């Protein structure tokens, strides 16, 4: 049984159908890249997995349990599915350490000492041992994004969603973030990422999902998919990047 299963997911914004029946299963330890043109629905799909977008039709099943859109279910879902955003979204009034400690303390009711221990561990893991007491506006974009990753990891999620985590970064800061993501993948973390870093996707991911006009257009092993795209759309998408 897969960790997360998406069945026939439909989602519209007003008249616009963004997701038109998505089926996707995410196995434990799998690293999946969602690629496609902007407007293809890949970010929306990612956001449905932790309930930031409520689906119109279909089913999300996590660990065998179907998720409804009731608050209790959503909170339970989000305990298992963490997320990192393009814009970092750190809380500006807390230090890096406090950003990471906040949710374990208030949501998981961990003691301050326990939360701090985990937070320090995570910040060390992402290479920010010396920046724990800094505020977000005292950190570079790459550092902020690594704090955001540490913050998500401190909740010990089973799956981590990454929504274009390097797209807002200056080119020279991209690698420090990708290195952390790569490390997580190597450690066996289940990852689903929307990315434009094709080379990274090719190297790190187990499965590539190419989205086109709200549907999964092509999927498979990254090496194969990149080497011999079966559809003209993927062919032109990959070709356009090369």
């Amino acid at each position: 049984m897969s960790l997360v299963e998406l069945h026939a997911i439909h989602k519209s914004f007003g008249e616009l159908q963004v997701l038109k029946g998505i089926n996707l299963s995410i196995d434990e330890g799998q690293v999946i890249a969602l690629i496609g043109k902007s407007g293809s629905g890949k970010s929306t799909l990612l956001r449905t997995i932790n309930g930031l977008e409520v689906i119109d039709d279909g089913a999300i099943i996590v660990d065998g349990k179907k998720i409804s859109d009731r608050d209790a279910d959503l909170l339970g879902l989000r305990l298992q599915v963490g997320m990192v955003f393009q814009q970092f979204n750190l809380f500006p009034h807390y230090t890096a350490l406090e950003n990471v400690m906040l949710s374990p303390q208030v949501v998981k009711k961990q003691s301050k000492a326990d939360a701090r221990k985990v937070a320090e561990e995570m910040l060390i893991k992402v290479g920010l041992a010396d920046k724990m007491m800094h505020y977000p506006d005292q950190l570079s974009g790459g550092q902020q994004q690594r704090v955001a990753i540490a913050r998500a990891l401190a909740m010990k999620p089973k799956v981590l969603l990454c929504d274009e985590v390097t797209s807002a970064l200056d080119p020279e800061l991209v690698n420090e973030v990708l290195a952390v993501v790569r490390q997580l993948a190597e450690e066996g973390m289940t990852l689903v990422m929307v990315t434009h870093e094709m080379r990274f996707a090719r190297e790190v991911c187990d499965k590539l999902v190419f989205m086109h006009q709200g549907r999964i257009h092509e999927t498979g092993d990254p090496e194969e998919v990149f080497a011999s795209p079966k559809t003209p759309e993927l062919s032109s998408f990959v070709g356009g990047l090369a």
Partner: protein
Amino acid sequence: MAYKFDFGAIVPHWELLLDGVILTTELTVIGAVVGVGLGIMGAWARASRTPVISQIVGVYVELIRNTPFLIQLFFIFFGLPALGVKLTELQAAVLAMIVNLGAYSTEIVRAGIQAVPHGQIEAAQSLAMSRLQIFRYVIILPALQKIWPALSSQIVIVMLGSSVCSQIAAEELTFGANYIQALNFRAFEVYFIVTGIYLVMSILLRMVLKVLGNYLFERRRHV
């Protein structure tokens, strides 16, 4: 015949003015604390997913913002007894100030909440925080920080507005001035002095609020 100024005529009544200052301060402190608290709750309710709650608060805000403070005060003091709610002058004055500031600060705080980037709220949601936890830990402090100058101004306006409470014989500063003026007909002198007192009180209040703001929003590491 020129008017002879005699500020000395006010001196025997200094205790009345002092009592007025004290009462005005008390009304302002209670009104500000409870009123801003009401405003924070109002702003939270305005963002409620239950339309009825949001609409009720909306009606309250518009009702208060589009009617004169004096009428609100009269309604509470002279009108409510018809419904069996009989309040003393001071109770009516403080209630009117709370209700008034509550409405204005609801809108001010709401603006601050809307200025918090939506991405931060989504990040908090993704960390499995509940709506109340998000409001308390992620939204309210940055929101208040953004609107603190506007909120401070509104509190000063409410303090100055408290002078209207003299009309129901709440014995605040303006009441004291009116009383002295009725005794010795030294209208120029007494209102001149009271103007100065209000001016000083406003400046002091602004300073206090600024210091309070600095304290509240100071970067204070919690760990």
